Each structure stands twice: as structure tokens, then as C-alpha cells.
């Protein structure tokens, strides 16, 4: 009986404290602070029929990471059936003909010239921010972080921008260990997240 009273007193103290902490945390959050996607409200995305995916920038230490992510991105984008994705050789020809100094980060004028040259409605650029294995104590896992932007071919302005991260070590892996998923699977998931955000 005495035990039950002690338990009730303890619960009565911890529950309000927990609620107060939760309210504080919610108060610290800013509106839109967790968002990672920008959609231009003035852009009609259904009008975009063809796209040129430019070579991605590689900000990681893994060689060719940008090519791998771009390959998966192009294949999955084409698989949606929403847009016609130009073959990479054709994009390379356009890049060469328009003499883009840095195809991974073109200026608005360069985007307009390239889109006209390749006869595409939009151009997509991207960056691979993280690609490889992460370790924490005995746990290892693959992680991919990628961002992409869509630029309108007529004006060169950004109409969509988003980023996605997949993989890494969560609490479960930290406690129980494990090797995580293969790089290809993590990459496919990250790209799927990006495309979901594009078409949402």
C-alpha cells in the first residue's frame, strides 16, 4: 500500500516535468525549420517534358561517387515516366558545345544556353555531400547525402531544390552492432526520397 503511494508521488513529479520539457522543445522549433525542399509556387511542373541531368559535384572523398549517384538518379527519374531524361552522352555533347566551365554549377545564362542547345525544358544539377562508410564504436554503416536543384530552361532560375540523406548508424545499430545496408540500396533510397520530394 505504501509502495503504491510512493509510486504515485514519483509519477506525479516526473510527468509534469516531462511535459514541460516537451513544450520547451516545441517552442524552440521555428516554422519550416525541418523542411529540406523548395518548390517555386509559380512554376507549372507538368509543363516540363524533358530534362538534362548535368554531372553532379562530388564533395566527398570517394572517387566517382557523383557518377554513381547521378546514374541512379537518372535511371530512377526516367523510370517515373514523368520526364524524358536525355542520355548522358547527349548531355556531354551539349556541355561541350556550350563550353560550360563548371557543368556542376552553371550560371543562369549558361543554363539557358544549354537548354536551348539540347532542346530541354529543365536542367538538373546536384551535389553528393556524403558517400561512404561511417563508424561508431563497433557499428559501421553506409551513408549517402545528396542535394539537387531543378533550373528552368527559359530563365535559368531555380524552381525546385531538395536534399536527402539515407543510411548511417541509428540507435539500434549502435546498441546491437551490424553492418547496415549495401551502398547501392542506400543510394536508391536517398534518390527515391529526392524524387518523392520533386513530385509531391
Amino acid at each position: 500500500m505504501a509502495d503504491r503511494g510512493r509510486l504515485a508521488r514519483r509519477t506525479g513529479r516526473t510527468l509534469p516535468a516531462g511535459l514541460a520539457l516537451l513544450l520547451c522543445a516545441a517552442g524552440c522549433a521555428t516554422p519550416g525549420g525541418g523542411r529540406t525542399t523548395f518548390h517555386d509556387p509559380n512554376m507549372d511542373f507538368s509543363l516540363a517534358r524533358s530534362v538534362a541531368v548535368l554531372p553532379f559535384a562530388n564533395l566527398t572523398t570517394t572517387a566517382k561517387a557523383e557518377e554513381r549517384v547521378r546514374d541512379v538518379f537518372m535511371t530512377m527519374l526516367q523510370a517515373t515516366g514523368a520526364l524524358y531524361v536525355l542520355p548522358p552522352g547527349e548531355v556531354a555533347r551539349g556541355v561541350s558545345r556550350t563550353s560550360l566551365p563548371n557543368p556542376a554549377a552553371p550560371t543562369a545564362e549558361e543554363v539557358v544556353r544549354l537548354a536551348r542547345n539540347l532542346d530541354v525544358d529543365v536542367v538538373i544539377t546536384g551535389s553528393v555531400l556524403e558517400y561512404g562508410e561511417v563508424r561508431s564504436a563497433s557499428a559501421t554503416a553506409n551513408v549517402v547525402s545528396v542535394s539537387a536543384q531543378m533550373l528552368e530552361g527559359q530563365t535559368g532560375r531555380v524552381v525546385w531544390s531538395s536534399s536527402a540523406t539515407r543510411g548511417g548508424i541509428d540507435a539500434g545499430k549502435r546498441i546491437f552492432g551490424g553492418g547496415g545496408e549495401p551502398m547501392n540500396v542506400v543510394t536508391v533510397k536517398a534518390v527515391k526520397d529526392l524524387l518523392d520530394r520533386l513530385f509531391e
Partner: protein
Amino acid sequence: MAATRQAVLLAALLVAGGAGGSTLVRAQDPVPIAVLPFEALSETVAPVTAIRGALVGRLAARGVPLLGEEALETFMRRHRVRYIGGLALETGRAFRSETGAGAVLVTSVDLYAEKDPPRLALTSRLISTGDRARILWMDSARMAGNEAPGFLGLGRIDDQKALRDRVIDRLADSLARHLSRGEGRPADAPARTRPPRRFLPRTSSRSPGIQSAGNGPVRIAVLPFSDDSTTRHAGEILFLQVLRSLVEAGSAEVLEPGVVREVLLKARLVQEQGPSIPQADLLRALLEVDVVLFGEVSEYIEAGAGTAEPEIEFLVRGIDTARRQAIWSSVSHGRGDDGVFFFDWGRVETAHELASELARGLIDRFLSSAKKPS
């Protein structure tokens, strides 16, 4: 008796598959096959001459008529033939007119390991000579010493020579079977099984139909694969497996890589990320192809002593030259232990076998979209 029948069938087959119209051989004559020196694509140094000698011996024992070594050497010296990975059109014509060879056997040693465990993989294809270099047959044979250890490891093979004999026997049997059967698949042949789900491309996109230039089957040219992996010749090995799967499927006309290479060199078509649309136009004009396939290997890890599972990742794209559009894009990825849960059941021992299965899965899915509109 069987050898005579094989020689006659071979002659008929080569006449049918070779030059349209003018031919230098009559169907009753035994038409010899020229066995080119083997191409070494393995990471380790392989005794290619000894392996070739063994295959030549096995083919001769099965009654396959072969071009003499001296005649072959003289021809290769006279024409300065250095490329042994395929047959260029000019070389094919010269082979037919000067040596009388009705076909050329092109073989590569894709995998070779002496021990821990011994492994060997060969890929071979038979190409008709004359005015039209056409792939008549293509197959691979491979084996790893530990692939079927059986009870208490009694089935394990530790001797490379014993393993080599088995692999060469498989390849020679396959060719001899094809020659004695004639062209095409026999009516009573069992239906091809669909590749398991784990070997299908992880991501793929395709167009609903492919337009053909003529009335025949869809003509496909496979361009050399670029290689970003750390394994030497991984691009060539995967290229050959994709080619083999296409040839085996039989529903498309696959251009001989030697002919494609000749055109690429003459037209100076070099594009790291695959052909552009104007380049695809040029290939259509020069080779009359409906589809151009090209790819890139990003990972190719061969299982070895102490290392983990074999692992492969590659990408294949296709351009429809008539519509001037990208029609196919896929990313394939596989590991030797994918989908293996109990007692290594279904485990793939070598990257070469994994490449073969992934290529089969890829072509199965690709060809389902490449049916000609009726």
C-alpha cells in the same frame, strides 16, 4: 560417323550464316574453324597457350574440323592481326578467301586462379567469316574448386588441371552440341527459365517498343563498357556476358563486336559517357542498327582467398536509333550471398558467375520491351 555428320552440318550452318549468296564452300565439304589465340582478361596471369591447346585438342576429339596451326599463324602474320577479341569484317573476308575457314572461334580467359580454390572461366563465340561476320554461337564455362564441396568436402577440387579439364570439356561439348544440332534452338529444347528475382536490375526504365529499320529482327550493337571498378578488364568481362545473354536469347540480331569496333575506330567515335544522338545516327547509318546498348561497370569484386563475397554493380543504357531517344536505363547490383539464408544454398561463388546471372536478368527484362511492333 558422328564426326562426319557434324562436319556436314557445320558446313551447312556456315553457308547459311555466312555470306549472302557468294560462298567459297559447298555444303558437303568439312569447313574448318580457325581458333584464334585466347585473350587474357583475368587479373592473374593465365597459361592461355596451354588452355587453348587443350581446347583445340578437345574439339578435334569431338570431330570438329579445325584450321591447321601453321595456316592460322601464316594468315595472322600476313595480315598483322593483333586484335583477338573479335572479328573485323575485312579480316573475316580474308579468312574465308585465303584459308577457307568458315568460322572463327574467339575465346577469352575471364578468370584464372591456381589455388585457394582454383578457378577458371572461359567465354567463347563462333563467328562466321565471309561477307557477313555473324555470331553463330556463344557460351561461357566456369568452375570454382569449392562450388560443390559436398559431404565432408569430398567434392572439392584442389587441382587446377583437373578443374581446367572439366571447364574445357563443358565448352567443347557446348560447341559440338551446337554444331551437330544446326542453326537455331531445337523444337524440343526446354523453355528458358526466367532469371531469379535477385538477379534482375535493381532499378530500370524502358520504353514500350523499339522501332526496327528493316523487316528482320531488331538489330542491336553493344558498345564497349567503360570500367570504373578496381578490377582490370571488368568492363570487357561484363560486356561479354551481356553479349552472350543477348545471343542466347535469340530474339534479336546481335552485331559482332569486332565489326562494331572497326566502325567505331574508322568513324573515331569515342564518347566516355556513351554516344550522343548524332553519334547514334552515325551508327545507324554505318551499321544499320536499331538499338545501341552501352554500359559502365562501377564495382566488380572477384571472390578470392580471404576476401568476402563477389560483388558487382553496373549500369546499361540503350538508345533507339530510329526514334533518336534513350529507351533503356538500368542499374544492376548483386552480391554472391544475396538471398542466401540456409547452408549457403544458392550462393554464387565467383563474380564471373554473378556477372552472367545479372546479365541474364538484365537482358530478360530488356528484351521484353524490345519486341518489334507487328
